């Protein structure tokens, strides 16, 4: 009985009596009673042993969080369930924890031990999610625990857990940036990970934590390039944008060549003389002369990046396509950038948000590379159903693309746009017409006439916009357009838009001598309405008055003074200032006058015509595709795209302990060629005729075999040596024939490949997961690399001393002959050169037939001239045959191997007009009529490089396409064999200093 009054007191007035359930909990009174009640039953549900009740409670809590309601007071009740067996409850508890742990840090610590246990769970999903939550709860006190967990997870067996570790890195970094050094270590470790799952995430972590540590990428660069196509889409975007930045710091600008070409040609000419002066065979001279001249050669790694990203233009993800597009825009040589246009135009079919972003970027690109989008002009035509913001962007692009030839169609389109119902869009169209008129002189009058017609439009906005644009156009040639100015003057009675009124007044003032009668009248009217005008118009009235006063003071003196007096008492200080200033200038007072003498010059000076420019003009200093570019303002965290370096940093930093299949750098190529040169001369100075060909053929076959060993054929190589030697001899006697043979054999070989592939495909693919690799060459190569890293590690060491095992033999051979003269051969990525060529078309078949079928021509020193992807199925390689070219002794004979990997015959293969530096000439090969699918052909052409290492640029034409290609000779290929006895050689050698 005694409890009753106390209870009633407790409840106060808010909750009425007769609610017995509150009775046992006096604390839960007050205005929040209903709230507390709900949470209480949630708490009760969470405290039960039944999972279903717990789950129900958690679901309701999560729903509260989703609606943005505060559920933080449930923290103690929820956190107890972190160890719940039911996985869904657990998951929801995680969701809750991540949301509220930051607010209740010490309570959150109670859950840590559960996660730590979870980190050791045999189930990788549980390990991963434990790490995810642990790293997401943002409680600074557990930083050391997180660090430990990340480190452990980074070497987990499961790639999924490693991926989670990569994700956790930026989380920890944002919690405590002091951990940076340790985190970089983890990143470095994860960067070396070879699974595609991890690659994207770790690069993301890299970008967040240490984007400046570009040195961490070197060793992984080629791997990332090659994995790229198999990484998931989000990772691709991050990797591509990181690689764009990387490439900008590590490679030379591919466009510098074009701008320097003219200057260079002269220098090159001198350079070649120098070479000659020092005499052939003087290797030092050649190699020292070369760096001074520096013709641009694209770093093979640069090429690798471009080649591997290109297929991604076909991605279904707009983000990936855009990322590749910006990469090409920023990194590719001018001639290759065009490929992105088609893909970008495709994105215009996508959601309007995607269109919006893509069009912004296209607008920027189309200013710099107009030609790229010209074929797609019609894709930017505007539909009445497009949202206004899309319309305006399309208009921008159309304007950028307009040129002398397409302007009639563009203007006709604009004409329809002017009749649109969307007035903002009409205004933008008028602006666009104005820009076309300024840019293309031929249509200026047409445009002007059209705009004048618009002046009689009923819509005032249209008229106003036209006036503004006409003003700008008239400024270019005012003399001829007195009529238009008069017409405009009449408009002042009707038109109300301030900007348009101001424009008209300015025009009349500026060209008052063309309309001497109307001008004072306009001023009179304006003086009348002066007080009611907008500020911008008032300023122009003052302007007009001043100008008229100077030219026609008799009629307008009083008017001017009236206007100036009105302006003197205007509310706007700007107008007051202007009036005061103008009065001092034009009305000479007794003491002043120094300036007023020049008033005419000040007011009536000829003014330059305005330039109507795109607002996208200078946007390209932002990296395309970035947020900053879109906003035209630097976003937080935006990283400038670095400029190309003047000097290429050392490319060898990217060499990894395993072989790369890319082309080797220029320098290394040169070395490769030099070696046979020596063996040549040695051989020829040899005593007997029969031994003559031996060293050469041996060294060739040797070098070839070394290259082939990569394809797993080294074992069979020795058996074929004889055969090859035979062929070698045959070739020297009747080279044409053997080539013919070689060609056929190659064909057979190529034919074999697809079969093998197919076989492998059907058997492998169904059975296990490694299947996706079967098609992508790069992947198969990656596998290759993984299979025999041990053997390769030996072969390509970083220093120049130890050459690869296979190579060693040939080098030793040489050393026997010319013990003193062999130059240190730098790390023979040479091996990989031809390895690349070999792997390109041929996959690894174990068939013993294959090696024996190899023609001697096809093996060593094959360089790619045109990749089959770029060539639309036509693949072109070339080799220097090292034989005198029959037509002209000065020419170097080059064997060109065509192969058609498309499914249609390629017709009429011939050379197009070569664009050659002075001195270089080309002897064309006879036209190939037709190249059936799968077939290949070899032709010989002669190039006189004029003893320089300038590239010979020319076009390969098929019936339908033209490809720009270039051959750059290594120095060794330019040298002709000379007979020297050993003594003579020693003597010559003695003359060369500085060995």
């Amino acid at each position, binding site marked *: 009985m005694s409890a009753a009054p106390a209870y009633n007191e407790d409840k106060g007035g808010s909750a009425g009596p007769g609610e017995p359930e509150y009775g046992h909990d006096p604390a839960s009174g007050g205005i929040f009673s209903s709230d507390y009640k709900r949470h209480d039953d949630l708490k009760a549900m969470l405290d039960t042993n039944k*999972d*279903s009740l717990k789950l129900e409670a958690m679901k309701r809590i*999560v729903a509260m969080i*989703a609606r*943005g309601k505060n559920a933080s007071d449930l923290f103690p009740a929820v956190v107890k369930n972190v160890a719940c067996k039911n*996985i869904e409850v657990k*998951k*929801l508890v995680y*969701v809750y924890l991540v*949301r509220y742990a*930051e607010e209740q*840090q010490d309570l959150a*610590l109670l859950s840590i031990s559960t996660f730590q246990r979870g980190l050791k769970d045999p189930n990788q*999903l549980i390990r991963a999610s434990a790490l995810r939550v642990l790293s997401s709860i*943002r409680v600074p006190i557990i930083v050391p625990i997180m660090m430990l967990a990340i480190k452990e997870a980074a070497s987990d067996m*499961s790639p*999924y857990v490693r991926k989670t570790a990569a994700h956790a890195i930026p989380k920890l970094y*944002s919690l405590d*940036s002091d951990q*940076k*050094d340790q985190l970089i270590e983890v990143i470095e470790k994860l960067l070396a990970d070879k699974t595609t799952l991890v690659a994207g995430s770790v690069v993301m972590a890299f970008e*967040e934590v240490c984007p400046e540590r570009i040195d961490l990428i070197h060793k992984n660069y080629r791997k990332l390039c090659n994995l790229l196509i198999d990484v*998931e*889409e*989000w990772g691709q975007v991050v990797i591509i944008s990181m690689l764009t930045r990387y490439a900008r710091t590590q490679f030379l600008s591919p466009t510098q060549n074009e701008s320097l070409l003219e200057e260079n040609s002269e220098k090159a000419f001198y350079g070649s003389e120098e070479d000659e002066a020092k005499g052939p065979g003087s290797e030092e001279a050649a190699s020292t002369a070369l760096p001074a001249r520096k013709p641009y050669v694209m770093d093979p790694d640069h090429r690798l990046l471009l080649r591997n990203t290109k*297929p991604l233009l*076909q*991605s*279904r993800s707009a*983000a990936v396509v*855009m990322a590749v597009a910006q990469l090409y825009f920023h990194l590719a040589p001018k001639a290759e950038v065009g490929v992105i246009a*088609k893909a970008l*135009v*495709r994105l215009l*079919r996508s*959601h*309007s*948000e995607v269109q919006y*972003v893509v069009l912004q970027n296209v607008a920027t690109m189309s200013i710099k590379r107009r030609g790229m989008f010209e074929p797609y002009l*019609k*894709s930017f035509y505007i539909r009445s159903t497009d949202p206004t913001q899309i319309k305006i962007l399309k208009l921008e692009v159309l304007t950028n693309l307009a040129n002398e030839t397409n302007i009639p169609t563009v203007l006709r389109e604009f004409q329809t746009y002017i*009749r649109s*119902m969307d007035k903002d869009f009409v205004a933008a169209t008028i602006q666009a017409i104005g820009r076309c008129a300024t840019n293309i002189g031929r249509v200026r009058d047409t445009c002007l006439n059209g705009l004048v017609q618009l002046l009689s439009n*009923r*819509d005032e906005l249209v008229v106003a916009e036209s006036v503004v644009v006409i003003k700008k156009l008239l400024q270019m040639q005012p003399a001829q357009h007195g009529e238009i100015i008069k017409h405009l003057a009449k408009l002042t009675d009707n038109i109300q838009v301030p900007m348009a009124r101001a424009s008209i007044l300015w025009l009349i003032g500026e060209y008052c001598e063309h309309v001497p009668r109307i001008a004072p009248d306009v001023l009179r009217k304006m003086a009348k309405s002066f007080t009611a005008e907008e500020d911008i118009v008032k300023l122009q009235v003052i302007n007009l008055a001043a100008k008229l006063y100077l030219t026609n003071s008799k009629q307008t003196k009083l008017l001017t003074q009236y206007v100036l007096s009105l302006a003197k008492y205007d509310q706007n200080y700007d107008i007051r200032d202007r009036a005061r200033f103008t009065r001092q200038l034009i009305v000479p007072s007794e003491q002043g006058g120094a300036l007023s003498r020049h008033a005419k010059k000040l007011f009536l000076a000829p003014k330059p015509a305005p330039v109507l420019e795109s607002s996208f003009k200078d946007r390209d200093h932002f990296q395309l*595709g970035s*947020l900053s570019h879109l906003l035209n303002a630097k*976003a*937080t*965290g*935006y*990283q400038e795209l670095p400029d190309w370096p003047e000097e290429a940093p050392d490319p060898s930093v990217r060499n990894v302990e395993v072989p790369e299949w890319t082309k080797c750098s220029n320098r290394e190529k040169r070395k490769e060629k030099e070696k046979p040169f020596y063996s040549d001369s040695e051989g020829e100075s040899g005593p007997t005729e029969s031994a003559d060909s031996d060293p050469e053929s041996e060294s060739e076959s040797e070098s070839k075999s070394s290259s082939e060993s990569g394809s797993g054929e080294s074992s069979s190589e020795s058996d074929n040596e004889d055969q090859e030697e035979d062929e070698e001899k045959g070739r020297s006697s009747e080279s044409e024939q053997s080539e013919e043979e070689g060609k056929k054999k190659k064909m057979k070989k190529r034919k074999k490949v697809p079969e093998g592939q197919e076989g492998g495909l059907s058997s492998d*693919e169904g059975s296990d*997961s490694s299947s*996706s690799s079967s*098609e992508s060459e790069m992947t198969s190569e990656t596998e290759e690399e993984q299979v025999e890293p041990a053997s390769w590690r030996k072969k390509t060491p970083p220093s120049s001393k130890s050459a690869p095992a296979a190579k060693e033999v040939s080098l030793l051979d040489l050393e026997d002959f010319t013990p003193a003269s062999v130059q240190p051969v730098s790390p023979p990525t040479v091996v990989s050169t031809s390895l690349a060529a070999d792997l390109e078309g041929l996959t690894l078949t174990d068939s013993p037939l294959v090696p024996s079928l190899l023609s001697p021509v096809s093996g060593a020193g094959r360089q790619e001239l045109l990749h*089959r*992807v770029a060539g639309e199925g036509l693949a072109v390689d070339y080799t220097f045959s090292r034989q005198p070219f029959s037509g002209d002794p000065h020419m170097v004979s080059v064997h060109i191997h065509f192969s058609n990997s*498309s*499914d249609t015959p390629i017709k009429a293969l011939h050379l197009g007009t070569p664009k050659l530096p002075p001195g270089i000439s080309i002897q064309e090969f006879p036209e190939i009529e037709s190249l059936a699918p799968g077939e290949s052909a070899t032709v010989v052409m002669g190039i006189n490089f004029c003893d320089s290492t300038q590239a010979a640029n020319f076009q390969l034409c098929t019936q339908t396409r033209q490809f720009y290609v270039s051959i750059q000779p290594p120095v060794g290929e330019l040298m002709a064999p000379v007979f020297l006895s050993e003594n003579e050689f020693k003597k010559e050698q003695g003359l060369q200093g500085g060995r």
Partner: protein
Amino acid sequence: MLRGDARGRVPDWGGGHSGRSGRRRRRPCCRGDAGLSICRGFQTEKDSLRSLTVSTMIHSLFLINSSGDIFLEKHWKSVVSRSVCDYFFEAQERATEAENVPPVIPTPHHYLLSVYRHKIFFVAVIQTEVPPLFVIEFLHRVVDTFQDYFGVCSEPVIKDNVVVVYEVLEEMLDNGFPLATESNILKELIKPPTILRTVVNTITGSTNVGDQLPTGQLSVVPWRRTGVKYTNNEAYFDVIEEIDAIIDKSGSTITAEIQGVIDACVKLTGMPDLTLSFMNPRLLDDVSFHPCVRFKRWESERILSFIPPDGNFRLLSYHVSAQNLVAIPVYVKHNISFRDSSSLGRFEITVGPKQTMGKTIEGVTVTSQMPRGVLNMSLTPSQGTHTFDPVTKMLSWDVGKINPQKLPSLKGTMSLQAGASKPDENPTINLQFKIQQLAISGLKVNRLDMYGEKYKPFKGIKYMTKAGKFQVRT
């Protein structure tokens, strides 16, 4: 004690524009100086600036309905106050129409990136530089996933399934970076709700959440799960082509393009490896593939070779090369005239077949946005039904099938605002139509082969041509 320590490390700056988020953004500042001293030598000043703003890609997501209510919010890092959406509402007001809301809105501390689908705005909040398409593409993927899960993506459905939505979002992003976006993987992690499963779950107490790592996640074919079993093995492919065209007043084509897609519904047991070849692959000018398609194979042989995902997916979308002339299957004869003097205007349109390769044109709909001056229209169609909305001024005419013998037409008068001068623009006519069993480009699938499995699947290919953005200017 602990709490005190934690507080000490996270000084509360408070008073920032958006409360907590302001704090997070600035907190590293106070560390920056200390951090700099331990940094290695090569860290320039710019870099140190960079380190101040370490952040995630997508910070938060807000779902906003057309009446401006935020009905769902999800944060992947610290909570961003929903007041940030005020900037969005402002922009929305300025844009008047939903589709004109700029997809990217900068605010003092954040950037708002939004997509508008199914009458819902999906607004992502980001803090630092990130490729905008990355976020936009992700948001669209979220919508697609919801659609995949619940059949439709609408406000009531999302509200009903808020827990599943939350779980899915949790899996899709980790720390703001996409984690699992493949629908196949997601569905193994979190099973889509079905009535049956809900019933079973309540009885047995089992859950919708998978406790094993989805098999796809680790394999090289992440889009397909293992252990798929069907009693009827079937693979259907729909070749759907859309004609985008602008026809001018006189009926001549200004621009016409064919865009096509191949949508597939594959229900095959095990790990089938399919190849699909075309009779005339050269028609395809520009293609984009589902990640499952082997690009190299296409490059070299023009064959689509792939291990398909399970269920519905878009295998390929393509563009037919511009050199080929596009056959326009319909024509529209129109006579729309306003007279200055009277308040009546004449309106007459007729639709007829042109180059249809002998197929019937079905599902024809004509829509047109009439000028503002038009008050009402009194029209009589020769077939089908028509409506005119006097508020939006939208005329739509559901024509149905076109009978070449008796061409459908819509005739009548428009009543214009009295006294107002005649509108100087003529409306454009938008056309929708369908032609079954025809790919207008002439694309033909040659054959479909399956490797890797023993059974014989049932295969089907369907062709269809549709109007894409098909406009007739009048």
